C-alpha cells in the first residue's frame, strides 16, 4: 500500500500561480478529502498526483518513491473523473476491461485475431473476465455489462467509472468530485457506498470535493484548500471545532459561522458590536469573534446580549434560520429548534451566545486560541460575562 507525500508543490500556468507550496502527507490507507471552493486548485493537485500534470516545483512521493518522470500508467494510481470519462464506443464490460488489457497483455497479445493464438492469452483473458464479472456483481452493475455508457443513468455510469478504477486494484484512488452529477438522494447513497468500498479495499483515497458535507461525512481527514494553499489538515471534528483561520471557520459549517468584528480596547477587554466582554490574553487591536448559528440564539434577557432586528426567517422543517441585523449593520444567522418560539420578521430580539462557543480570530484572521505560543488554552467563554454598558459607556472605561 502507499502513502503520498507532497513537499512544497507549486504549479503555475504561465503567469498565474495555481498551487502555492502544498505540503501534505496522506497516510497509507487513509481517506482524505481536498475541500475547497471552485477554482482553488483541487483538480490541479489531483492531476499532479496522478501524473497527468507535472508540478512546477516541489516533490511528490508515492509510497516513498519519487514520482518525477514516472508516467501515469506506471504509478499505482486510479482516477475517477467528474465527467466519468467512460469510453462511449465501448460497452460497460469493455470499459472495465481496458485497464486490465493494457496491463496484463503484451502488445502482441492485444492484436486483434492474431493475439488470440499467442501462448497464454486465453487464460489471461479468462482471468480478466472472471475478475470483471466478480467486481460488477459487487458494484451491482452485472446486468449492464453489455450496454454502452449512453444507455446508462448517471448513477450507473458513476459505478462503471468506479469499477474501471477498481479493477486493477491500485494502491491509490483519486476521485475528482465523483458525486457532483448525481441527485441528492443518489449522492447520499453513494457516499455510504464509497465509504464502505474504502473500508473493504484499504487503499489510499484522495477525494476532491467542494461539498463540505461529503468531505465531513466520509473522510478520515479533511484538507481545506483556499487559493492554492492548504490552510488546515485535520479530522472533520477538529476542523469544525478548532479552525485555524477565519476562512476555514467560514468554509466549514452550514449555515455559515457568524463573524462579528471587535476591537480590544483595554488589555483583556474587547468590544463587539457595542457590547464589552473580556478578551483572551495576548489579543490586541482589531479582531473577530466567531459563533456558530446554533450557538447564537434569542434570549429573554436584555442585559449582556446583542440587540438585533429580524430581517428574514427560513423554515427548514427541523429547524428555523433567523437572519438578523445587529448594531453597525452586522448580519447574523441563528439556528433555532422548530419547537421553540420563533420570532417574526421585523421583531426586535436579543441574541445571546451560548457558553464555550466563541472563537477568537486576530486581525489577520488566525485563530487566537491556536496560534498563541501557550498551549491552546480553552478560553472559558462561560466566564464571558457581557457587561450591560452601551457602546458609549464602554469607551469611557
Amino acid at each position, binding site marked *: 500500500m502507499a502513502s503520498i507525500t507532497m513537499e512544497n508543490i507549486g504549479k503555475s500556468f504561465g503567469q498565474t500561480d495555481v498551487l502555492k507550496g502544498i505540503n501534505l502527507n496522506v497516510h497509507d490507507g487513509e481517506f482524505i478529502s481536498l475541500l475547497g471552493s471552485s477554482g482553488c486548485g483541487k483538480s490541479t493537485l489531483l492531476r499532479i498526483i496522478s501524473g497527468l500534470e507535472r508540478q512546477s516545483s516541489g516533490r511528490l512521493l508515492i509510497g516513498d518513491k519519487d514520482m518525477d518522470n514516472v508516467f501515469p500508467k506506471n504509478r499505482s494510481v486510479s482516477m475517477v473523473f467528474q*465527467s466519468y*470519462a467512460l469510453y462511449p464506443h465501448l460497452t460497460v464490460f469493455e470499459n472495465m476491461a*481496458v485497464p486490465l488489457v493494457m496491463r496484463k497483455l503484451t502488445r502482441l497479445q492485444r492484436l486483434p485475431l492474431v493475439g488470440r493464438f499467442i501462448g497464454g492469452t486465453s487464460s489471461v483473458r479468462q482471468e480478466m473476465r472472471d475478475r470483471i464479472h466478480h467486481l460488477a456483481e459487487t458494484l451491482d452493475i452485472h446486468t449492464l455489462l453489455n450496454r454502452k455508457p449512453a444507455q446508462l443513468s448517471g448513477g450507473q455510469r458513476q459505478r462503471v467509472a468506479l469499477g474501471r478504477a477498481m479493477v486493477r486494484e491500485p494502491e491509490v484512488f483519486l476521485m475528482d468530485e465523483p458525486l457532483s452529477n448525481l441527485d441528492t438522494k443518489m449522492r447520499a447513497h453513494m457516499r455510504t457506498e464509497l465509504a464502505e468500498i474504502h473500508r473493504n479495499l484499504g487503499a489510499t483515497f484522495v477525494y476532491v470535493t467542494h461539498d463540505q458535507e461529503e468531505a465531513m461525512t466520509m473522510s478520515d481527514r479533511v484538507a481545506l484548500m483556499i487559493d492554492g494553499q492548504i490552510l488546515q489538515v485535520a479530522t472533520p471534528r477538529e476542523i469544525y471545532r478548532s479552525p485555524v483561520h477565519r476562512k476555514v471557520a467560514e468554509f466549514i459549517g452550514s449555515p455559515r459561522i457568524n463573524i462579528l468584528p471587535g476591537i480590544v480596547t483595554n488589555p483583556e477587554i474587547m468590544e463587539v458590536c457595542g457590547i464589552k466582554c473580556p478578551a483572551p490574553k495576548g489579543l490586541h487591536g482589531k479582531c473577530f469573534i466567531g459563533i456558530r448559528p446554533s450557538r447564537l440564539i434569542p434570549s429573554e434577557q436584555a442585559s449582556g446580549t446583542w440587540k438585533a432586528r429580524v430581517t428574514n426567517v427560513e423554515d427548514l422543517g427541523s429547524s428555523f434560520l433567523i437572519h438578523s441585523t445587529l448594531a453597525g449593520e452586522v448580519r447574523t444567522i441563528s439556528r433555532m429548534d422548530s419547537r421553540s418560539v420563533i420570532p417574526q420578521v421585523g421583531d426586535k430580539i436579543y441574541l445571546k451566545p451560548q457558553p464555550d462557543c466563541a472563537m477568537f480570530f486576530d486581525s489577520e484572521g488566525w485563530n487566537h486560541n491556536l496560534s498563541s505560543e501557550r498551549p491552546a488554552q480553552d478560553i472559558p467563554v462561560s466566564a464571558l460575562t457581557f457587561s450591560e454598558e452601551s457602546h458609549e459607556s464602554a469607551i469611557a472605561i
Partner: protein
Amino acid sequence: MKIFSGIFRHLLLLTGSVFMLIPFVVMLSTSLKSQADIFSGTFSLLPGEWGATANYLQVFTKLPILDFMLNGVIVTTSIFLIQVIVALPCAYALAKFHFKGRKLLFNCVLWCLLIPPQAVAIPVFMELYSFGMLNSYAALIVPWTISVLGIFLMRQFFMAIPDDIIDAARMDGMGEVSILIRIMVPMALPALTAFGILSFIAHWNDFFWPLICLQDVKYFTPPLGIAYFKTDDSGISYGPLMAAACIITIPLLITFLAARKKFMQGVSIQAGVK
C-alpha cells in the same frame, strides 16, 4: 402563415434539388437513346428510339471499362489509406497536444485549404518528372497523400472529444498511439467516413490530374477512360459516353448509400461524441 412558410420552404428546396438533378437525369436519358434520337433536335425525357442496349454494349466492348474502374479503385483506396495514416496523427497532435507553434501549424493547414490543386499542378508535375515517377500509379497517388482537408476535418472532430477521456485512457495505461487507435478513431468514425466519401468522390471523379500525368492507357482512371469516346474519329458518340458515365457513377452511389448514416453524423461535427 405557418403553412405558407412551409410550402415556400419546400418549394425552394424542390427547385434546388431539381436544378441539381437535371444533369443526372439528362445523362441517364441520353444513355438510353440512339445517336439519331439524341440529335433529333427535340428533347424528350424518355427515349424516342431505344438505344440503351447498343450504347451499354459499346461501353463494354469498345472500352476496357472494367480495367479503368479497377485502376480507379486501386488509386482511390491507396490515396485514402495514406491520407488517413498521415492525417490522424497530425489531427490528434493539433487537437490535443499543447506545444509551441501549434497555432501557427494549424493556420498553415487552413491556408493550405485555400490553395487550388490546379495552382500547384505544374510544380508537382515537374517534381514527379525529376523523380521519374510520371505515368504510373505513384503519379496518381503521391500528390494527394497529404490531405489538409482530412487533417482539418479530423482535428475539428477530435477537438470535440473531451480531454477527460484521453486522460482516463492515459491512466488506464495507453500510450498515445494506442489512444489514437483505440479511442480517437472509433469515436471519430463518422468523421472518418465522411472524409472517406469526400476523398473517394474527389479522386474517382478527378479528370484533370490523371490527364496531366498519364500517357499510358494502362493506368487510366474512369473519367479519363470514358473521354475516349469523345476523341473518337467519328465525332462524339454521346450515347455510349453517357452510358459509360452512368456506369462509373454506380460505385459512388453504392458507397454513399452504404455509408449515408455515418456520413451525416460526420458532417454535423458535434454528433457522435455524446
